[in-house]
């Protein structure tokens, strides 16, 4: 699955996107996946330390942390929007 990081997620993790092989995505929630990611290193841990500001989109549709990843081909992590 393609994993995208925006704004300070990208800064902290140190890359804009990566490819991660997911197994059991039909049972894995966004929250489970965040826990897996947070264990990948210091940058990830810092990026995901405050779950209140971790926003997630599956295939460009915003979802909450309880959503099952399922067949999504792209997941994106980003802080609250500040455009306009």
């Amino acid at each position: 699955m393609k994993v995208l990081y925006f704004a300070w997620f990208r800064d902290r993790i140190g890359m804009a996107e990566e490819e991660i092989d997911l197994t059991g995505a039909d049972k894995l929630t966004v929250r489970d996946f965040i826990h897996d990611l947070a264990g990948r290193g210091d940058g990830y841990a810092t990026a995901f330390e405050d779950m209140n500001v971790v926003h997630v989109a599956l295939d460009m549709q915003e979802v909450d942390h309880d959503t099952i990843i399922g067949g999504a081909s792209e997941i994106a992590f980003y802080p609250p929007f500040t455009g306009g």
Partner: protein
Amino acid sequence: MVRVQTEDFDPGAELDNLVAARTDVGASVSFVGHMRARNEDRVVETMTLEHYPGMAEKALSEIEAEAHKRWPLQASTIIHRVGPLKPGDRIVLVITASAHRQAAFEAAEFLMDWLKTKAPFWKKESGPEGDSWVSSRSTDEDAAQRWTASGKSD
């Protein structure tokens, strides 16, 4: 019509494009967001707008469609710039056209309120004290909230 672009836009030309050759538009409201050299107490030299390509256009189109569902609009335009911007630069343009002014005003406010809270754009400010990502404002959340449930539009 929705566009995300690095180039500047021309508010007057965009309004002309929208209403030219129409004789059913009685009111148009054009909102322009401009970059300020100061945000609260910080000096800002450059503001960099980042977006999620694909999702940004999709979100703006959905917000625009929602406005057309709620108000009798004849036409609308949303343009959001991305990339580095300098003080005084234009950031965003929203135009609404309707037979009457109330619909045009309300829809333009709605588009800005939702765009700020529901479209994937992020601002980074750079100034003498370094770079920092702009925090979301609770006042923007409140402004967006008024259009749901018992909002002004009901």
